[in-house]
Each structure stands twice: as structure tokens, then as C-alpha cells.
């Protein structure tokens, strides 16, 4: 084991001595998170509502205090002249302006003098309107019952507020965005992991080209140990990539994975085995680093796209979806999606078995190809 660690140390040292590799292996996986953030936008659940009150009477005050009491809405009182700037700069999502006469209009049973300003459209105003209109309808009903008398209205409104029934509301969290962001980030990570694995396995080809590989084999190191050390370095780098990506998603960007961290880590760890397997197959079938690069591009990019790493597989034609079922990346994303939907690990044993089968198949093909060699001019 000592000599394997010695080999690993050398590979890690020579790999990470180059700053470009630090960027490629440790920073690039985070790009997926930024892409996911850009694609899904800032879809936070709290709205900021600006309020301009020209009315300044009891009913407008009560309406504002009702708005302040709503969940997921933050009310900010602003001046008329600041409306435009606040809306355009995004400091507020929408502005409600209570014009003079609003209270009277409610009291007379014909609510009016209320303006709603927003540039974000129905997705923001719809939510506010649905609450506000219902509240104003209630006020109008009370004013009709009070026949426009302010004192009677105040008394009725007071009773209305003191009603002894209580309605508990529970807001359902919209997890679709965070799920989609997690899958986007992990889809990108899958691509980076495959490229990283191919690059790290290509070290074998580079060392063959500069003849150090054959020198290594003249030492007590066997070809098996050498390849094993490369696989371990590869796995180590990929696990670090997974941990960095998941940690940034969860703890820096506070994106809910909708799966426990260890489950996501486990699925991606199985995928890292597949990546190493694929990379070894590429190396086993290549005579040079150039050939391996060409093969990497030929295999990785199309399969990553077909398997839905960049966009949901459902948007692709049915025939393409069927092809994607033969790709390990598809099964990895499928396992993650099912876990997000609440499936237990146990119920996904078939998915897990399929992932392991992919890894085993790739390793066996690579081992077979490596073992066919009988020349020092080619592989082991």
C-alpha cells in the first residue's frame, strides 16, 4: 500500500502544481451552480411591497396593517416620488398607492382610489391582489351593513377583528425551483467529472509517451498497482468535486437539495466509479493522448446532452429519450430525481444496481483491453 500512496502523492503533486488544473478540477464544478442560478433566476418566496398612503385615514391604515400581517410579504412605506426608482431598481416588487378618498370609497360600498404598480407582472401582483381584494370585499360588506356610518363600521370592524375562530394557514413550499437547480448543478457536475476522469486517466498515456511508465514498471511497482493508484487519485479528485459542489449548493447558496446530503453524495460517488470506468476504456482504446482527447469529446459531450444533464430529458423526442435509457448519466439523474420525489434508497435498488452494473462493465472492458497487450510499445 505504501508504494501506491507514493505513486498517488506524485500524481497529485504534479497535477495540482499546475494552477490551471486547480481551476479545472476544483473550481469548474461550481460553474454549474452559477448556470443553475442564472437559468432559474432569483425566485425567493418573500415579496417586498411598497405602500404610498395619500389617504391616511382609519380604513387605509387598517388595510396597511392587514398587509403587514400577511405571511411572505414585507411592507415598506415609501413616498410618491420614490415609487419609480424603487420599482425599477427592484427594491420593491410592487407598490400599492392609497389615493385620497380610499376610506370614503370603501365606506360607501364602492371601493376605489387604489393603484397597484409593478413591472414583474401577474406573478407578483396576482398574489397581492387575491388577498387584498378579499379583504376589501369584507370591508365593503361591513360598510354596507353599517350603512356608511363610520362609528357603526368601526364597531363592526372591531368585532370582526375579535372573532373567536382562528384560521391557521400553512404555506406550502414551492420546491420545484430548488429541485431543478440541484439537478442542473449536478448535471453540469456529471460532465465535469467525466472530463476530469478522462484527463486524469490520460496521465497513463502521457507517462507511456515520455517512457516514465516503462521505467516505473522496471521498479517493484506492477502495472496493476500503477493503474490502481491512478484510479484512486481519480476517485479522490471526483469525490472532492462532489463534496465541493454539494457544500456550495447547500451551505453557500442555501439551495435545498430536497435529498439528504449523504444520499446525494452516495449516488454521485457511484457515478464517479462509472466515470473512472469510462475514462479507462477511453485510455485502453487510445494509442496517444490526442486520440484519447478525440474519443473523450466524441463520447462525453453527446451522452451528457442526450441524458438530460443540461435540460430535462422530457423536452427531447421520445426516440431520444429511449436512447438515453442506455446511458449511465440518465440513470444517475433519474436516481437523484426519484430521491427528490421522496423515494427511499431501498426502493431504488434497481437504479443503484444498474449504476453499479455500468461501472462493472466499463472496468471489465478496460481490464480486458489492457490485458490483451504483449508489447512494451503499447499498454500493459
Amino acid at each position, binding site marked *: 500500500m505504501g508504494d501506491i500512496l507514493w505513486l498517488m502523492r*506524485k500524481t497529485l*503533486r504534479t497535477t495540482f502544481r499546475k494552477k490551471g488544473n486547480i481551476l479545472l478540477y476544483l473550481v469548474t464544478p461550481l460553474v454549474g451552480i452559477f448556470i443553475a442560478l442564472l437559468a432559474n433566476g432569483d425566485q425567493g418566496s418573500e415579496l417586498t411591497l411598497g405602500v404610498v398612503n395619500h389617504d391616511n385615514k382609519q380604513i387605509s391604515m387598517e388595510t396597511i396593517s392587514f398587509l403587514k400581517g400577511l405571511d411572505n410579504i414585507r411592507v415598506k412605506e415609501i413616498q410618491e416620488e420614490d415609487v419609480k426608482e424603487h420599482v425599477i431598481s427592484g427594491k420593491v416588487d410592487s407598490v400599492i398607492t392609497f389615493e385620497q378618498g380610499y376610506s370614503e370609497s370603501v365606506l360607501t360600498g364602492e371601493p376605489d382610489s387604489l393603484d397597484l404598480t409593478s413591472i414583474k407582472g401577474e406573478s407578483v401582483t396576482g398574489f397581492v391582489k387575491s388577498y387584498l381584494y378579499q379583504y376589501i370585499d369584507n370591508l365593503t360588506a361591513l360598510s354596507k351593513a353599517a350603512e356608511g356610518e363610520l362609528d357603526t363600521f368601526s364597531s363592526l370592524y372591531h368585532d370582526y377583528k375579535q372573532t373567536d375562530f382562528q384560521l391557521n394557514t400553512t404555506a406550502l413550499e414551492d420546491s420545484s425551483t430548488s429541485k431543478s437547480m440541484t439537478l442542473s448543478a449536478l448535471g453540469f457536475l456529471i460532465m465535469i467529472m467525466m472530463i476530469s476522469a478522462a484527463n486524469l486517466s490520460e496521465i497513463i498515456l502521457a507517462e507511456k509517451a515520455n*517512457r516514465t511508465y516503462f*521505467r*516505473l*514498471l*522496471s521498479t*517493484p511497482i506492477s502495472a496493476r498497482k500503477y493503474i490502481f493508484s491512478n484510479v484512486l487519485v481519480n476517485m479522490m479528485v471526483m469525490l472532492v468535486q462532489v463534496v465541493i459542489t454539494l457544500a456550495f449548493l447547500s451551505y453557500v447558496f442555501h439551495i435545498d437539495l430536497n435529498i439528504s446530503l449523504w444520499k446525494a453524495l452516495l449516488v454521485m460517488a457511484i457515478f464517479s466509479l462509472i466515470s473512472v470506468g469510462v475514462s479507462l476504456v477511453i485510455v485502453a482504446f487510445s494509442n496517444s493522448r490526442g486520440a484519447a482527447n478525440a474519443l473523450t469529446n466524441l463520447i462525453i459531450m453527446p451522452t451528457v446532452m442526450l441524458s438530460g444533464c443540461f435540460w430535462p430529458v422530457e423536452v427531447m423526442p421520445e426516440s431520444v429519450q429511449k436512447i438515453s435509457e442506455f446511458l449511465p448519466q440518465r440513470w444517475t439523474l433519474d436516481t437523484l430525481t426519484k430521491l427528490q420525489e421522496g423515494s427511499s434508497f431501498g426502493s431504488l435498488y434497481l437504479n443503484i444496481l444498474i449504476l453499479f452494473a455500468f461501472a462493472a462493465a466499463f472496468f471489465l472492458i478496460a481490464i480486458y483491453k489492457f490485458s490483451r497487450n504483449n508489447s512494451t510499445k503499447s499498454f500493459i
Partner: protein
Amino acid sequence: MNILEIQDLTKKFDDFIAVDDMSLAIAEGEIFGFLGSNGAGKSTTINMITGLLRKNKGSIMILGKETSKDSEFVKRHIGLIPQEIAIYEDLTAYENVKFFAGLYGLRGGELHDRTVEALEFVGLTEKQKSYPKTFSGGMKRRLNIACAIAHQPKLIIMDEPTVGIDPQSRKYILQSVHKLNEMGCTIIYTSHYMEEVEEICSRIAIIDHGKIIAEGTKEQLKSLITDSKLIFIEVKSQEAIDVDTIYKIQGVTDVKVDENTVQIHTELGVNNLNQIIDYFIRNQLEIRSLDEKEPNLETVFLTLTGRNLRDS
């Protein structure tokens, strides 16, 4: 005691026999020269000795152990200096030597000391923190050697260690071979440079078509052809040469025509040079140069293999 014993060694690549039933013994403390043209089976033999290639038949014993059975033990006592420079460009000279020495199980202070010693031996102490990309060809060759000797092997295999370097570095390397030998290392040395082999090797094997066709000290090899000498005659055109007529000249034992050069093997002590020249003049074959060679390693090689080592 023999450090290396090869018995009936055979290696085939499909139908091609690269090494054919080879047997050889090298005693401890020898500097053993391996002479052979490209494709003669030299590198294949070395690759089997160092465990890079599996043999089809025969046995290779190093320090009394069969290489295929006690591979790890055997490899710990071998240092291979490959023909191609096999070092890491992204490690410093010190890191290169330390890394390769570490593969033999050396660690800690011992590893550091051996690394420093090896660098000092090849004269690269001052360059130990530099990367090989800043080195000249000769310095890279020396680093190539340092990487193979830091673990203090008993058997050092040098495969063409002086290819493509300046005379000063070549001299340095040849001196190093002697020094290593004085320190107790047995050395197997292959080279295209006949004079190097002649200068440093205590025993030499000539390998051709996978077989050892001659083996012994320089003197023993030369004695194989002491009864003949070689005459090289370069002519303007070889078209009119009649080999059979030259054969009829007294003392001539063999005639070969290679492009415009005629190689004539003739018995030592027979004065037939005038008759040979007379043949060329009579047949209006314009002689451009004439060279008469007394037995040396090169003529031995030529006589035995029919080829010039450097041209092959």
C-alpha cells in the same frame, strides 16, 4: 558468482522470433557489453530481464532468483537506465530522483541521503532544484542515470546511455560507469558506439537475429577472426563487378557488395592486394577509396553479422 543467468530464453511476437533460445551468464562485478543491430533482440532481452515483457520459454535468474517468480525481490536489485530519457519534466531533479528511489521502499532520512548522493554522483547537485526542461541533453541523460542508481542496485542495465549527447557528457558518463563498477555494481551496457564498448566492457556478447553469435573478452572476440582481414574498396559503379572472379583470387574467403562498396575477406598473411587492385583496373572499375582493416571489434561484428553496426 553469477549475478545473471539466462537459460534457453525465447520470445515470440506472433510468428516473429525476437529472442531465440538464448543462454548467457554474467558474473558479479563485470561490465558486460551487449552488441547488436536494431531488431537483433537486444532490447527484447533487456525488457525480459527487467520484467517489462513476459518470456515464452526459458529462465532468467538474478541473484539466484527466477525473475518471473520473485519479481519484486529481483527488481529491487536492478537499476534500469533506459535508452529514452524517462524523467518527469514537472518534477525538479531532486524530486525526480527521490520519487524513483521511493518506489524501492526508501523513506525519510535514508531516502534524502541516497537522493543527494545520486545527484552528487552525476554532478547535478547544484541543479537539484531546477526542472529538467532547463537542462541540456547531457544533463538530462545524467539525471536519467541518477534516477536508476539512488537505490544502490547490484545490477545496472544501461541501454544506449550516450545517445545524442556532447563529448564532455559522454566522457562523464563513461567515467561514471567505471566508478559504479568500482563501487561493486555489475553493469550491462548496450551501445551503438563500438569504441565505447571496446573501452569499458570486460566481456561482450554479439547478438544477431535473437541469438548470441559470439561472446567473450575483446581479445577472445578478435581472436575469432585473427586469421582474416577485411578490405573495403569503394568504386564509382558496382554494375560490372563479377564476384565470382574476385573469389578466384588467392586468399579471398568472402566477397560482399553493398551499394558501391565491396567488402573482401581475405586470409591474413596472404599478399594479394596487388591482384585485387589489378582486377578492378583491368575491368575499368574506377576505385575511389581503399581501406584495409586489421581485426578490431567493428571488423569482428562485421565479419560475424555481415553488417555494419551503425548502419543497421
